[in-house]
């Protein structure tokens, strides 16, 4: 469904260097058009996002110093990103000192190959996984499967997505697009040990998942995780989760492999305090997070015997080079911006063509993957610029600013290339709109046309590309006289 003939489009089957599993998805407007017509999906999403939206607002309102916390978080992240090289080397040094091993991965392919090699070296052919955005980004599960290694997602929602051969549609609640009945059906058909007579009662579904996972936890040789934060001063990793399954993955297996984006680093434990106040309230509207696991290298006789940290670039350093765009690297993946977004609420996560949906996806994917692919080029335009995302973002990412910045990059990248009717329209309208004389002439033409274009004082049909508007909305009828003409006629002598 991708628009044909766009430059830079990858041929089918060619591995996408950034996020391999999302190859060949339709660009945002096409995917969104289909999604928005799904009334069940919209009802599910409206209910879910409105509920969490209200709860978040309540949790945030409890803290009088929310804005100061937010500004502190922004400052910490900006400082860290400005000195990323220093802190990364410090992290590596301290992880190594604590008995861990650090690997550097330039892109998704490298990260996946490193993980596969480590799993093989551990003599295993399966892994248990903590919910992780970084490994969704690299398409790790698919890459491991191609290598004969099976990966089991242990986060309940992530498990639902995995069993349903589906893609996540929300950062925090990957199966937000599924309702209870659908989940029961997925469990019944895809989970061999699903109990007979399973109902769609949430506790029953959770219990079924729990017993399905329990055996895997106990027998797993290798655990794979991401991390919410990496503390440079001690080489410690931090995983924040709600179910406790993540904690089992990082403690029970003998080998633990953590794949972590380079921007997840924080200088010190003191800095972490700020983020542990911001993240749960923004994300689940909780005052405190239920399970916060931290570990530093290996501890003999306690937890994994081998610890590997895979530090992932995959486009992050190139995003860092863009002074406006790089603020996206402050993101702590709380998903507050998704929950308040009017566009996300109507179309859901799949239309964004990456594991990062909603407003953050619209600014991070085109930076991590570049804008050569039509999917990525369409993402910065997937917003009304209403600014609700910026308002709630706990690290104060000015998403509307980043969006219009990226839009300019998309437009500029196409300038020298193919002919574009849109560009012609904007160039011509630019000439008219900056010239009072041409604008006045256009207004006279519009006023003269009012009897021709309007039927009974209304305009109900316009030609493409404006026909999308008149599907559901009347268009304004030009007045007999513009303001400018009225002023000149009645008060022209005054200015």
């Amino acid at each position, binding site marked *: 469904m991708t628009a044909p003939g766009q430059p830079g489009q990858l041929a089918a089957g060619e591995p996408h260097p950034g996020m391999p599993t999302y190859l060949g998805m339709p660009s945002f407007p096409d995917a969104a058009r289909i999604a928005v017509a799904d009334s069940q999906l919209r009802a599910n999403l409206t209910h879910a996002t409105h509920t969490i939206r209200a709860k978040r607002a309540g949790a945030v309102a409890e803290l009088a110093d929310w804005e100061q916390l937010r500004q502190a978080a922004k400052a910490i992240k900006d400082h860290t990103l400005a000195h990323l090289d220093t802190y990364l080397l410090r992290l590596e040094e301290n992880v190594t000192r604590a008995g861990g091993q650090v690997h550097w991965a330039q892109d998704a392919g490298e990260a996946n190959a490193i993980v596969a090699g480590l799993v093989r070296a551990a003599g295993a052919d399966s892994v248990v996984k903590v919910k992780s955005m970084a490994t969704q980004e690299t398409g790790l599960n698919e890459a491991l499967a191609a290598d004969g290694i099976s990966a089991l997602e242990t986060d309940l929602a992530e498990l639902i997505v995995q069993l349903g051969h589906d893609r996540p549609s929300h950062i925090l609640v990957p199966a937000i697009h599924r309702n209870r009945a659908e989940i029961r059906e997925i469990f019944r058909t895809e989970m061999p040990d699903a109990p007979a007579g399973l109902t769609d009662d949430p506790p029953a579904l959770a219990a079924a998942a729990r017993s399905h996972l329990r055996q895997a936890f106990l027998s797993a040789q290798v655990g794979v995780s991401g991390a919410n934060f990496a503390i440079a001063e001690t080489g410690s990793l931090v995983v924040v989760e709600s179910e406790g399954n993540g904690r089992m993955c990082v403690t029970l297996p003998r080998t633990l492999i953590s794949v972590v984006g380079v921007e997840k680093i924080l200088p010190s434990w003191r800095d972490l305090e700020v983020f542990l106040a911001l993240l749960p309230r923004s994300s689940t509207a909780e005052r405190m997070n239920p399970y916060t696991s931290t570990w530093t290298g290996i501890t003999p006789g306690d937890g994994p015997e081998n610890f590997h940290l895979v530090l992932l670039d995959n486009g992050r350093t190139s995003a860092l080079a863009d002074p406006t765009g790089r603020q996206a690297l402050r993101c702590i993946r709380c998903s507050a911006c998704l929950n308040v977004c009017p566009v996300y609420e109507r179309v859901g996560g799949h239309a964004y063509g990456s594991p990062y949906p909603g407003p953050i996806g619209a600014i991070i994917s085109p930076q991590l993957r570049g804008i050569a692919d039509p999917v990525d080029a369409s993402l910065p335009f997937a917003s009304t610029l209403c600014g609700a995302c910026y308002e709630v973002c706990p690290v104060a990412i000015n998403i509307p600013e980043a969006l219009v910045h990226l839009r300019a990059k998309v437009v500029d990248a196409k300038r020298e290339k193919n002919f574009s009717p849109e560009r012609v329209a904007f160039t011509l309208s630019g000439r008219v709109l900056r*010239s009072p004389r041409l604008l006045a002439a256009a207004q006279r033409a519009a006023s003269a046309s009012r009897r021709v274009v309007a039927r009974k004082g209304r305009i109900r049909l316009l030609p493409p590309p404006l026909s999308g508007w008149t599907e559901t909305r009347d268009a304004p009828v030009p007045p007999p006289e513009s303001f*400018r003409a009225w002023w000149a006629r009645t008060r022209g002598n005054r200015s």
Partner: protein
Amino acid sequence: MRIGLFVTCLTDTLYPDTGRAVVAVLERLGHQVDFPAAQACCGQMHFNTGYRREAVPMARGFTAAFGGYEAVVTPSASCASMIREYYPALASEAGDAGLARAVAEVAPRTYELSVFLADVLGVTDVGAYFPHKVTYHPTCHGLRMLKVGDAPLRLLRAVRGLNLTDLPDAEACCGFGGTFAVKNAEVSAAICADKVAAVRQSGAEVLCAADNSCLMHIGGALQRQRSGVAVMHLAEILARTEETR
């Protein structure tokens, strides 16, 4: 005070009544209003759609037209936020020091109408009379970018005869988003449908906002549904008096 009226290209072309209303309100308060004929468009649509280069000459045109006024007043929170929030960045990107100086001079004195009345002049009762049931939609750029706060509501509450009724989920976007409404027309329409439902639920006769772009969008859908709800720019309500009703 000598005030330059920046009417905006949209209001100039399609909604001249709003422009006349701004003039009427400001003159009623004893101010002198000029309409510098050299004005055109602020460039927001181009800027927001990625055509930043094309927006630069428009910013130059704006600053040339409005240099020297004590205050520039506009009936659009969206255009005011373009000038106040994005012109400085646009000028520095273009590497045009002269434009940057002109922007630094004129942008801080450019005000959205309700902010100018309620916060700069400190007037909330402008002598208006409008005996109708009205609901108010706070537009996104006014609410979150320009942060006009409750200035429009304070003005509406002071209008004699006006019955102000709450709009459910008022702060939700109407789905317009400029070229978004064309590029992603179906999504835009879906967002708008919920806004229109909220307007109808409010039971108001008139939907008021301080931006004609959003009113064009919501009003277009209200009209298509033959809802009987009229849309009016804030200025047009403020311009109504006992005599003009």
